[in-house]
């Protein structure tokens, strides 16, 4: 009987291992490919079947001394601005919806309806508005457009965290001698700070990855990374080597940030769940 159990467990383990390996390969292979491509000359890139090659740094040098660093900073600015405004507005909003049921039951999920809207619908009005405000082509316009999809998500994400804070905690602060705003600041907010950090990172990644709005609303000096990467697809053909470098420059920060918030992501989507 012992042997039978062992065999079954061994089989299951092998099967599991197999699936995990496949998943790993599927996920990691593209990154590996891009990394390798970044070290190849155009000639080697045209022969993808070759397993061995001599790595060169030309692509890296070319890309990092050109515009990519500026694009990186542009993306960074847009991401930070978007997140800052989203948190500033979204945190109190999430509090109102989560704690005081502002807007009723529909609001809690209703604010996500803006996510369903195709960007193509909004981009023309946004372009027109930025033109009339004389900010067209600026990073501010891009950040403003990013708010249309980052702010709702950040707010929605935070609602669960606010709901998890027991009402008694806030009420205790009220009886102890603080007004509602002070009670929010001193007692409620500290409880949701981990959620706020996660929401901020989540929102940043959403903004960082946007191609559509950045493509249409900015350009030239204000190009963001996704746009720059797309730019390597020229009329002469795809400049794969340099594009790969740009891709890595764009992807690595996101990987690092995502690693830090993976736990909190589950909590936020699951609806808070802080323990007391």
């Amino acid at each position, binding site marked *: 009987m012992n042997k039978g159990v062992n065999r079954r467990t061994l089989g299951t383990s092998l099967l599991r291992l197999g699936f995990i390996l496949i998943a790993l390969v599927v996920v990691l292979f593209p990154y590996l490919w891009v990394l390798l491509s970044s070290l190849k000359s155009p000639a080697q890139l045209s022969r993808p079947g070759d397993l061995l090659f001599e790595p060169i740094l030309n692509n890296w040098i070319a890309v990092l001394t050109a515009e990519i660093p500026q694009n990186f900073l542009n993306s960074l600015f847009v991401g930070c601005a978007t997140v800052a405004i989203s948190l500033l507005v979204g945190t109190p909003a999430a509090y109102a919806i989560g704690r005081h049921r502002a807007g009723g039951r529909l609001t809690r999920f209703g604010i996500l309806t803006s996510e369903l809207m195709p960007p193509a619908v909004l981009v023309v009005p946004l372009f027109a508005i930025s033109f009339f405000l004389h900010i067209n082509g600026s990073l501010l316009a891009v950040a403003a457009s990013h708010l249309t999809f980052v702010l709702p998500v950040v707010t929605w994400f935070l609602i669960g965290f606010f709901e998890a804070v027991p009402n008694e*905690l806030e*009420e*205790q602060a009220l*009886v*102890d*001698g603080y*007004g509602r705003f002070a009670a929010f600041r001193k007692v409620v907010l500290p*409880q949701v700070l981990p959620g706020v950090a996660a929401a901020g990172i989540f929102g940043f990644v959403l903004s960082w990855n946007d191609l559509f709005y950045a493509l249409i609303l900015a350009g030239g000096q204000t190009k963001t990374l996704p746009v720059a990467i797309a730019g390597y697809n020229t009329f002469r053909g795809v400049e794969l080597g340099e594009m790969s470098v740009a891709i890595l420059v764009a992807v690595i920060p996101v990987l690092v940030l995502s690693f830090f918030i993976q736990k909190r992501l589950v909590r936020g989507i699951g609806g808070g769940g802080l323990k007391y």
Partner: protein
Amino acid sequence: MAGIELKDVMKRYGSVEAVRRMNLEIPDGSFVVLVGPSGCGKTTTLRMIAGLEEVTEGEIRLGSRDVTNLEPKDRDVAMVFQNYALYPHMSIYDNIAFGLRARKLPKGEIDERVRRAATMLDIEPLLKRKPRALSGGQQQRAAIGRATVREPAAFLFDEPLSNLDAKLRVEMREELLRVHKRLGTTVVYVTHDQEEAMTLSDVMVVMSDGEIMQHGTPAEVYLRPAHEFVGRFIGSPEMNLLDGVVEDGTFRTKDISVSVRMQLDGEVKVGIRPEDVHLRGELPADQASEPIDARVEIVELLGARAIVSLLTGEHKLKALVEARALEELSEGQSAQVAFDLKRLHAFDARTGERIDESGRRFYGSV
């Protein structure tokens, strides 16, 4: 320190009246317990006194001040919640000092008061820790310390002992009484546990369905319940209640017939507490009712006493007897019991109000 007065206070949520027109005077320095089953309005009343719920109608006075429309922070009351509501991100010291800092007291005085409160409640070594590092009993004490340190006009407790195990609960009850004796501050305490109400209160306010059913000392409420509800709710095991008719001085049900010393006639509900149901022969003849035939169904030994569940043909009776009486009783056996006639209660069959010996209906002491 101040007394509290509720004048015609009413709380309505939409069409539901959670608290019906309530008038209550709480004398300065007394320990008043609002007791009743879930949903009776006791917590709503407490929250209205604290300012956490708006009063639909009526007035609340704290001492000489009309606090009805004041924010909680301006009322000078301290509250302790059932789950202690200690701020998890702050140390115990900061938790206790929180209210004092809100009032912008000087640092030195805050420190002195916090340490004094902590010493009084035996939690001085825990001041640097965070709430999650404390046991339930310690958290409870920290919450009480946070309330006492403010030296408020009144303490409001919302079922503070419900989260503790039985033994701790008894310990904390004594602790609360000690604190109350020491500080003399008015206390309004909400609980659903009738034993807590009995042991802690100077004055008990028994509530049901948004109304005060009776309001008096524990002895008054226990010995002379103003309503059938109060008789049943207070006292454990529960009072026995029998529906029957009184004719010519005899109370009759299908299988019970006892003479009663009440000026009554007609349908009535008679109540008798389990400790007033005796085995035949235990009561002096002038106090004992006629014997009632019953069969012992269940015996639950408590230690020095036992709860005996009896069945007459129609009724289930509970008797609370001394353990030694069990020598004569065992499950399944027949027995004869008698009621202590001096301790019979009579309630109106329709309204449930108490009918006293002279036949007068009397409704609590609101």
